């Protein structure tokens, strides 16, 4: 267990340092700041997201990324259309989505992914652990789209896709 977390820490630290070098540039004089930043980021990341044994499925992940791109475009176009329309066509309200993913990182990832869906914005959980979504138009088939996204994410994270 101990060796796994050391290896995870090294891998994450190298990733964060690489990202820092990418943003700031490889100047030796700045490297001390980069090492400190990477160490702080690694510590935070290990605390917030301890290394698990989950394995990603890259094919499902690629499909999810493609769908995310399409949804970003549709979501942006949808909100732009509503904002610029003279009639301002909004039917705002909340819908409750009973999420199948366990609470924690997977569920948070789902929230972040679905925040780009056309007309939906995750706004916390209700008393029964279901996700609450604020919608620009409650008559859109929001729950159907969310279920498709959730199925893809479950498969990408290595779980089995049992229903839908």
């Amino acid at each position, binding site marked *: 267990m101990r060796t796994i977390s050391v290896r995870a820490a090294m891998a994450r630290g190298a990733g964060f340092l690489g*990202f820092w070098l*990418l*943003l700031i540039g490889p100047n030796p004089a700045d490297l001390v700041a980069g090492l400190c930043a990477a160490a702080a980021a690694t510590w935070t990341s290990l605390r917030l997201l301890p290394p698990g044994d989950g394995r990603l499925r890259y094919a499902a992940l690629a499909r999810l990324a493609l769908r995310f791109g399409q949804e*970003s*475009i549709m*979501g*942006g*176009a*949808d*909100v*732009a259309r*509503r*904002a*610029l329309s003279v009639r*301002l066509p*909004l039917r*705002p*309200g*909340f819908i409750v989505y009973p999420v199948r993913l366990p609470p924690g990182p997977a569920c948070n990832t789902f*929230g*972040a*992914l679905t*925040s*780009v869906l*056309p*007309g939906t*914005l*995750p*706004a*916390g959980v*209700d008393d029964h652990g279901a996700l*609450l979504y*604020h919608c*620009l138009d409650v008559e859109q088939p929001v729950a159907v789209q969310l279920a498709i996204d959730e199925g893809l994410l479950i498969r990408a994270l290595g779980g089995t896709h049992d229903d839908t």
Partner: protein
Amino acid sequence: MSLVLDIFTIVAVSAGAFFFLAGTVGLLRFPDTLTRLHALTKADNLGLGLVVMGLLPQAEQPFAVIKLIAIWLFALLAGATVGQLMARAARRERPTP
């Protein structure tokens, strides 16, 4: 070839600017905090994506291309996270029906 790339840049960056404008119009016109958050998160995400895509052909080294994409992904992640947190806070202020 360079002309085609320049035209691509102009079209993509202009389209990006259009979505930023639409998001700002939404911010001003939409009736409450939650609907305004929709306008900002979605329109700006697409706007920034288009601006970054338009700038990619103008990057001089491959390093700059990766940097541009990293900045976009970073802004995307920050927007998705902060948008949710603000929506939660706004909902707590005005409980759901």
